[in-house]
């Protein structure tokens, strides 16, 4: 049916107006593999008459080549856009498609069902307001249905359509449908998903998608499209307090200084008082630019540029907020994490955290529990693995300005990124700020590092010796320590093995324990540097991330990374403690260089190879470095 549109330009304008005023609903389809998600989306596109002739011709040809429907139109091929997806008949990544009806426009994200692609499902869910979750009428609620429902709840999706698909394969049995609907109702209640509509469908044939099904006369509820067209997903976020995360400071010339960003909550008008966080300084809004136009007010969702009455230092990552409703500002938070990476989460490791325009360094200080998707129970756990969900406490290197996720996605959602591989390893939602950061105020002391350093006539620092077992770290560190004492300097040597006899007696050799081992040594080193000492650390410390973390605890110039780069073959030949022999025999798992990797420093301050340089010569080079740098 050709849409009716006017012949005159005025008629067309009113038609376009009506188009533009149609609200847009963003939703996703999710659920387990082969439950018919892509088929449903393909069917929606087909039935909404939005497919062009050339696309239909291509679909017919592809259905014959790859189709799983015996030569009939395979609607899934409309959305499975990657070659690998068509060949394997599965969905790997989320596809975004657009369609419209008389009442609404829709952006649908068709997401994969395989557990291994959960991160792609989460990508689709993060921007959706509603989810259509499919189940196979023969199988009912399965683990993946629960996992996806949990992620929907975590990401604040409050409206779910449960499409019970393949009703033809259970003989259109009303009791079967009712049983599944009851099971899902129970799950949704436990997950606190407030709005659920269950619809029995046959996606392939279109039953209860756009038109009701004569094969299921017992069902008197809405079709899928009826529901999508009429559901009210508004959350009144525009009534929340004003928030503008600053993306960009616009300073084209000396006369203009504007702060650009997209309004994440509430509204703002010219003349209103706002506060800048984290500094807390206040000012009045003098102009609001919407593109190149001056406007009086602007609301949530609009990208604007504001100017203020006062010259305040504001940079990217700061948040302009309603003066009477400050956001959360803290360096410790309780949050939920959905883990995306093959490498498990490590408590104690530093990750890059991104939230709005803020980039920080975050450590998972506590994993409180892991969520079992099958039972929804909280389980004790030491780590989170791929696709697991947990509740954690985060410690940040400086205060984060945010809101709880339930008060808005833009100010409450964040990602964690591995600092070296740059993979996005987790998505997180802020639950609340832990007040410890403000409760335990930093006690300002009168005697400081600079004073203690002057008393000792030295610049305190950490000499961090890293390298394989048997590389000669402790030997060289010991020589350097003796030489410094001979020069009358104040030092302390923290040896990895010795520390494991006391402070770190409780730690083993798993990756998690190694990370914690290094974190404690790094913190102790920092205290000693504060005391004015030159600290020598002799520790295999195989991971770049942890050495980076230690470096980040100190001020520039205080961390001297010394790579004792004796090759593995030479270390193994020396084998002073017989450890390599035992590792090769399989007696020591996770032994660095054998069963566990060593990541060499990319730019150490000093690099020493004791296979070509005797220990005394190596120690001399370290001393020379300290003299050159004015440490001693």
């Amino acid at each position, binding site marked *: 049916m050709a849409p009716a549109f006017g012949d005159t330009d005025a008629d067309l304008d009113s038609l376009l107006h009506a188009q533009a005023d149609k609200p847009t609903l963003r939703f996703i389809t999710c659920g387990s593999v082969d439950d018919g998600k892509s088929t449903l989306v393909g069917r929606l596109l087909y039935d909404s008459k939005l497919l062009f002739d050339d696309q239909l011709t291509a679909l017919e040809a592809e259905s014959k080549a790859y189709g799983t429907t015996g030569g009939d139109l395979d609607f899934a091929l409309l959305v499975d856009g990657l070659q*690998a997806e068509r060949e394997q008949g599965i969905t790997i990544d989320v596809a975004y498609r*657009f369609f419209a009806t008389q009442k609404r426009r829709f952006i649908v994200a068709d997401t994969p069902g395989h557990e291994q692609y959960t991160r792609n499902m989460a990508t689709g869910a993060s921007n959706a307001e509603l989810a259509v979750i499919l189940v196979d009428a023969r199988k009912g609620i399965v683990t993946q249905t629960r996992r996806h429902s949990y992620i929907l709840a975590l990401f604040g999706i409050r409206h779910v359509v449960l499409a019970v698909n393949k009703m033809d394969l259970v003989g259109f049995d009303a009791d079967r449908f009712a049983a599944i609907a009851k099971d899902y109702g129970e799950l949704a209640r436990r997950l606190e998903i407030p709005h659920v509509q269950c619809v029995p469908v046959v996606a392939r044939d279109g039953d209860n998608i756009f038109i009701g099904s004569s094969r299921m006369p017992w069902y008197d509820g809405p079709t899928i499209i009826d529901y999508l067209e009429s559901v009210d997903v508004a959350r009144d976020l525009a009534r929340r307090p004003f928030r503008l995360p600053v993306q960009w400071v616009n300073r084209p010339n000396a006369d203009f200084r504007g702060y650009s960003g997209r309004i994440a909550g509430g509204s703002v008008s010219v003349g209103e008082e706002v506060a800048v966080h984290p500094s807390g300084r206040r000012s009045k809004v003098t102009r609001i630019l919407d593109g190149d136009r001056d406007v009086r007010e602007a609301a949530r969702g609009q990208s604007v540029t504001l100017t203020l009455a006062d010259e305040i230092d504001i940079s990217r990552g700061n948040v302009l907020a309603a003066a009477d409703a400050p956001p959360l500002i803290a360096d410790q938070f309780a949050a939920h994490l959905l883990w995306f990476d093959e490498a498990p989460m490590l408590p104690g490791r530093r990750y890059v955290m991104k939230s709005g325009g803020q980039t920080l360094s975050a450590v998972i200080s506590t994993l409180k529990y892991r969520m079992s998707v099958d039972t929804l129970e909280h389980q004790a756990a030491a780590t989170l693995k791929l696709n697991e969900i947990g509740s954690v406490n985060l410690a940040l290197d400086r205060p984060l300005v945010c809101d709880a996720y339930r008060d808005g996605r833009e100010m409450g959602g964040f990602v964690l990124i591995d600092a070296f591989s740059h993979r996005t390893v987790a998505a997180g939602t802020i639950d609340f700020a832990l007040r410890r950061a403000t409760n335990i105020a930093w006690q300002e002391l009168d005697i400081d590092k600079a004073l203690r350093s002057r008393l000792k006539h030295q610049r305190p620092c950490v000499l961090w010796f890293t390298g394989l077992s048997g590389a000669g770290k402790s030997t060289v560190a010991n020589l350097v320590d003796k030489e410094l004492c001979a020069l009358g300097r104040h030092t302390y040597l923290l040896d990895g093995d010795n520390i494991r006899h006391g402070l770190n007696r409780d730690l083993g050799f798993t990756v998690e324990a190694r990370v914690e081992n290094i974190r404690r040594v790094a913190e102790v080193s920092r205290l000693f540097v504060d005391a004015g000492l030159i600290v020598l650390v002799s520790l295999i410390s195989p991971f770049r991330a942890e050495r980076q973390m230690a470096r980040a605890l100190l001020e520039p110039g205080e961390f001297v990374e010394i790579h004792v780069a004796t090759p593995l073959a030479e270390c193994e030949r020396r084998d002073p403690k017989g450890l390599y022999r035992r590792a090769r025999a399989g007696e020591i798992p996770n032994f660095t260089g054998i069963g566990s990797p060593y990541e060499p420093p990319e730019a150490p301050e000093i690099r020493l190879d004791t296979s070509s340089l005797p220990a005394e010569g190596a120690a001399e080079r370290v001393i020379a470095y300290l003299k050159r740098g004015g440490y001693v």
Partner: protein
Amino acid sequence: MPSISHLQQLESESIHILREVAAEFRKPVMLYSIGKDSSVLLHLAMKAFHPGKPPFPLLHIDTTWKFREMIAFRDRRARELGLDLLVHVNAEGIARGINPITHGSALHTDVMKTQALKQALDTHGFDAAIGGARRDEEKSRAKERIFSHRSAAHRWDAKNQRPELWSVYNTLLGPGESMRVFPLSNWTELDIWHYIHLEKIPVVPLYFAASRPVVEREGALIMVDDERLPLRPNERPQWRTVRFRTLGCYPLTGAVLSNAATLPDIIREMLAARSSERQGRMIDRDQAASMEKKKEEGYF
């Protein structure tokens, strides 16, 4: 406070993306292909940084086979807006005489567009390239992230894309790696024309119907834009009233018979259309999944 309209929402999202690129990358560039999507992209960039200028140059990959009207329009727009325009031609391709007529669309596109783009990005050391692609254009585009990571060899790993949550973008790059960024991802063809109409954005006149000399080849109407298009025996250019839904290299871009001479005409015609805009593009027909393959090789 009323909620913002559909087009305002798209505009606002795109501006947010453009500002993220400017703030997060060392040396970004905007790919400017002169078509309607590029026109919208440029308009959004002007808005995003007003009263300043966009803090990145424009880059046009010139295959030397673009319609003459496109080149004139490109130079005029850059001049009017006072923007820095870089034009890159694959000199090696020219030296080897690569052209769409003797070498076919696949090889021509690879050498003069894909390879040329990679050369230009490498030469200037750009770490982010903003493009005007939309998800509704094509099935593999519908799968792509807004911030789409490229390896040091400019490859797209379609099966292993970074998760992209909310509007938080992971912009971290390793040595030599880069990002392609698509601020118009969520726009449809109708949105583009509607926005051009509302905002009065200039577009290349080739989009409007006019009498033009064309020859019919393999069901496509090819415009004889200059003397380089060799005519086949018994082939004579005919003056027909045509327009273009999409613009590219003229020997590879089919015109459609149309009387749509104004923006409202174009929108009306599109509302009644039964074929997609990419139908006129010969390069997409070369093989099934050709767009995905080209993208994996570095096509934008």
